[in-house]
């Protein structure tokens, strides 16, 4: 009798097991479905736009005014804004983030590091709309004291704040990479008489380089896709310029600007934001895959 009960409870366990396998597998599929959802929606909704617009005009037009009665489709005007704000952000985040990573990994006391690292990560937890507020109403007036001709909306101000936002990505990933460089390599360099900074720059930095590169690439992807800071502080007017002291719209800011207005399903405005979104997706996909590959290579090497 005992054995028959245990047999039936075993059957029950097996039944539950096979049900749960399917439930859990469905969760894994959900993440794939999200990607398909994004790709399919972008392709489907931007298709009419790319059908109607001659492909060469994307590159030969010098302005991006798809909503005007005589529209221009020079996507370069939006890409310029993205390029400049991202460039400014990287000029802040890469040197600062790398120095902090070297300092925290090679110089700082372990207790200090354990305390500082989560604090630094709070910087990337700040809601981006708050950063936008800060760029527009605090940093821009401050910069205007140094350079009075700076307009109210500028790519410089937005880019600098965006740089602060992505410092933790560089520092955190960079520091992890540098710390996983084997101690033996450092000791070898010390034995040859090098100092701490020398070891950090000549041994640890090159040793961790693919890990650091992954951190940089992911930071670029963040900056390219960042929306609220640039929409608030860099301006909403597409402009073909590489001067960070001017205002210009990024790809993301354009999507926000159009979304704020009335946006009937299927209108040219509706299609144009999906077209901009498709361009944005391709750019970030490239950076994300490169970052993933670099990180994998680094983990395999160490």
């Amino acid at each position: 009798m005992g054995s028959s009960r245990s047999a039936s409870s075993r059957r029950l366990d097996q039944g539950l097991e096979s049900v749960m396998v399917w439930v859990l597998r469905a969760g894994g599929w959900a993440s794939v479905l999200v990607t398909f959802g994004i790709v399919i929606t972008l392709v489907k909704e931007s298709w009419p736009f790319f059908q109607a617009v001659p492909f060469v005009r994307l590159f030969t037009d010098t302005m991006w005014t798809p909503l005007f009665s005589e529209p221009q489709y020079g996507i370069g005007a939006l890409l310029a804004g993205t390029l400049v704000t991202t460039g400014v952000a990287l000029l802040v985040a890469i040197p600062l983030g790398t120095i902090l990573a070297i300092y925290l990994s090679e110089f700082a006391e372990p207790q200090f590091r354990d305390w500082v690292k989560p604090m630094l990560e709070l910087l990337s937890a700040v809601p981006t709309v708050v950063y936008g507020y800060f760029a527009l109403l605090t940093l821009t007036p401050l910069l205007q004291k140094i350079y009075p001709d700076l307009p109210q909306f500028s790519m410089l101000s937005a880019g600098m704040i965006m740089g602060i936002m992505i410092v933790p990505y560089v520092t955190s990933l960079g520091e992890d990479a540098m710390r996983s460089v084997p101690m033996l390599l450092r000791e070898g360099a010390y034995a040859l008489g090098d100092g701490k900074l020398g070891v950090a720059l000549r041994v640890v930095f090159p040793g961790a380089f693919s890990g650091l590169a992954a951190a940089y690439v992911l930071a670029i992807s963040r900056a390219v896709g960042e929306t609220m800071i640039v929409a608030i502080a860099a301006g909403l007017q597409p402009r073909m310029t590489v001067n960070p002291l001017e205002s210009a719209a990024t790809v993301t800011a354009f999507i926000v600007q159009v979304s704020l207005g009335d946006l009937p399903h299927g209108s040219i405005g509706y299609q144009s934001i999906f077209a901009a979104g498709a361009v944005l997706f391709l750019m970030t996909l490239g950076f994300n895959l490169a970052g993933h590959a670099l990180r994998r290579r680094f983990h395999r090497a160490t």
Partner: protein
Amino acid sequence: MRPDLFHALQAKRASRRRSIDQWFRRLGLFLTLTTLGILGILLLNLAMNGLARIDWNFLSSFPSRRAGEAGVLSAWVGTLLLMMVTAGAAIPFGLAAGIYLEEYAPKNRWTDFVEINIANLAGVPSILYGLMALGLFVYQFQFGQSVLAGGLALACLVLPIVIVATREALRTIPSSIREAAFALGATRWQAVWHHLLPYSTGGIATGVILAMSRAIGESAPLITIGALTFIAFLPPAPWVDHVPFVSFDWLFSPFTALPIQMFNWVSRPGEEFQANAAAAGLILMVITLSMNAAAILLRRRAQRNITW
């Protein structure tokens, strides 16, 4: 070279190296404190401009054309409802995906693909989740510009965070625990349910808190689905006084949220509206920073209590 000269030269070099090291140590410390200082300045700035605006009236009033009378009632209620949808969708799916990938998935191309896919999803700009929600949830599924569409958009956005946190929490459990359960005849699910999940609660909870804090601060995806900024009413309550006592009408109600309300105020001219923006920003910062602090403490405690 004379030996004493050689030694003197070497000592000089060593002392120069030490002073360079000392100099870099100071630079690193200075930059660390400056960077952290920016966070402090940000908070101080919001508090100086916005703290005076925060009172009961601000929390219990609808937005208004007159800055002095405007409040965040519909915004914080909207944020709360959004988070119910987001948590309800992202936590079960994220947990399931995490458990599947860590404990069940065979090593093959499909699993590799799913992993690359999750790594990429974590880096997709938030605004693209908004475009997906606009095309798919708002128009294709006809949810409209509703709490449901917004909450699901945010759920997709934070799904990778929950998945990665679940996997990392499970990965820290030594395989001897699994083997012990299997040796006693447990099925895989029994091992997960009775052993692995209880041991990884701390790590998973940390990830869930971080995911929710990310979702609370997001505005871009909500703007793209057309979340209105001027909402002077509340969605219908989730409870009613007749059978079955719960109602899901709120899921299909238009909404606004705290970050959207703040964005609306930032983009208006006039110092009074900017004070409102600062007040809304302060509330957002307090919520997200305390959630992050809770997550950090939880992670520390979970790490300290476990000795395998």
